[in-house]
């Protein structure tokens, strides 16, 4: 490693990242709560009732940010995987595996809220809409990652295998999305689209943005918290872990 990079790589070591993550996560959790409170207030009390969809449309304040986050988190996982393969840093794999459950949770949330929204709007719990279908496949990719890393006993090997899965997945996500869209246009039956909502009021956009920020902060807080647990579990035999104040009790 060349010298100038040393400051960055200092935090790539689990021993120095552990206390940092411990200091940071409460702040992100607080931010998440604040953004969520503001976002929910706007989405429930400020945003006007939609003249076509009534009150039911308000679920998109959860649905849309959750879909964004589920895709974004997958990209972040792929980013960490690439770093892990490129620089052989231990922390990257831990970050990926800390993010995966949150990403899967958001993908599931997006599908769930999509179904809840779809029932009154389309009269069906599930419609083979291109976005919903891609989201479902994204959930499968998350589950594949989680299942594979859970099935491999050696954590280092699990990290590396997971890194390959997420990189292969991230190349495939745009291809899958494109192919599903293509498939959708060929089969005209289900051409209802979630984005065909009438022009969005500015307050609605704000609500959505605030909720997206809240989810974002939540993801960071949870990932940091989870990565702390992973570090402790993997490094339980290291001396620095034994010297931690929380281990002295």
């Amino acid at each position, binding site marked *: 490693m060349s010298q100038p990079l040393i400051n960055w790589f200092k935090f790539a070591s689990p021993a120095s990242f552990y206390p940092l993550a411990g200091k940071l996560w409460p702040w992100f959790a607080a931010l998440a709560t604040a953004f969520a409170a503001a976002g929910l207030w706007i989405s429930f009390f400020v945003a006007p009732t939609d003249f076509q969809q009534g009150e039911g449309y308000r679920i998109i304040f959860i649905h849309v940010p959750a879909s964004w986050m589920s895709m974004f988190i997958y990209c972040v996982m792929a980013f960490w995987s690439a770093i892990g*393969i490129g620089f052989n840093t231990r922390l990257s794999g831990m970050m990926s595996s800390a993010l995966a459950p949150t990403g899967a949770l958001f993908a599931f949330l997006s599908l769930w809220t999509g179904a809840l929204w779809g029932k009154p709007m389309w009269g069906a719990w599930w419609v083979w809409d291109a976005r919903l279908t891609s989201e479902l*496949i994204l959930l*499968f*990719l998350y*589950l*594949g990652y989680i*299942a*594979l890393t859970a*099935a*491999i006993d050696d954590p280092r*090997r699990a990290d*590396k*295998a997971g890194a*390959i*899965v997420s*990189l*292969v*997945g991230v*190349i*495939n996500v745009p*291809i*899958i999305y*494109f*192919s*599903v869209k*293509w*498939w959708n246009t*060929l089969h005209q039956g289900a051409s209802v689209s979630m984005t065909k909502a009438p022009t969005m009021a500015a307050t609605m956009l704000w609500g959505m943005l605030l909720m997206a920020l809240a989810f974002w902060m939540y993801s960071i807080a949870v990932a940091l918290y989870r990565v702390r647990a992973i570090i402790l579990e993997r490094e339980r035999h290291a001396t620095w872990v034994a010297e931690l104040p929380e281990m002295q009790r």
Partner: protein
Amino acid sequence: MNAFVAILRRDLLLAMRRKSEMLTALFFFMIVVSLFPLGIGPETALLRRIAPGVLWVAALLAAMLSLNRLFAADHQDGTLEQMALSPTPLALLVSGKVLAHWLTAGLPLVLLAPVLGLQFDLSSRALGILMLSLLLGTPLLSLIGAIGAALTLGVRGGGVLLSLLVLPLYIPALIFGAGAVEADMAGLGAGGHLSLLGALLALGLFFAPWATTAALRIALE
């Protein structure tokens, strides 16, 4: 290149001496396809509509059946170590194995598909497009499947895990493959679908051997 040919030859030879495994996958393909009319009913118009999808899904499943043993035997008997220590790049040897897999597990499906298509009353033109789409698509299945097979090598519950990993990645091939036949039957022309399938194949040929090699090295550590 010699090593590539040697691996290809060896795997074909092994497949020839273990014909039953190859035939099992083929019978599986035939049975799955034949079950659909029994489950749905013999109405010709309906069968014709679902035929491309049914044949393609059955081909996906049949190609997956044989993925488990793509690297497992080599891993167990130490051949994989010798391959990793060859002065020939491992990615090239892996390509040889994938080609052998396609020749023994993919190509037979392509050849058998038109016969099964007759059960669904497909026109000869549609049968031709079906074969063409499978010809372009099944190598892709072997290439992507090899990544999954390498990743699940020596992993608990590898077989089920393999399908969980690989099937979502097969979706584009399924959509364009089955779509080609449907588009042609709807009079839209299959050209677009087939070119996209070809593009995916080119992409797979380029990337999949590297990803597979990386996964194999992890399994060997």
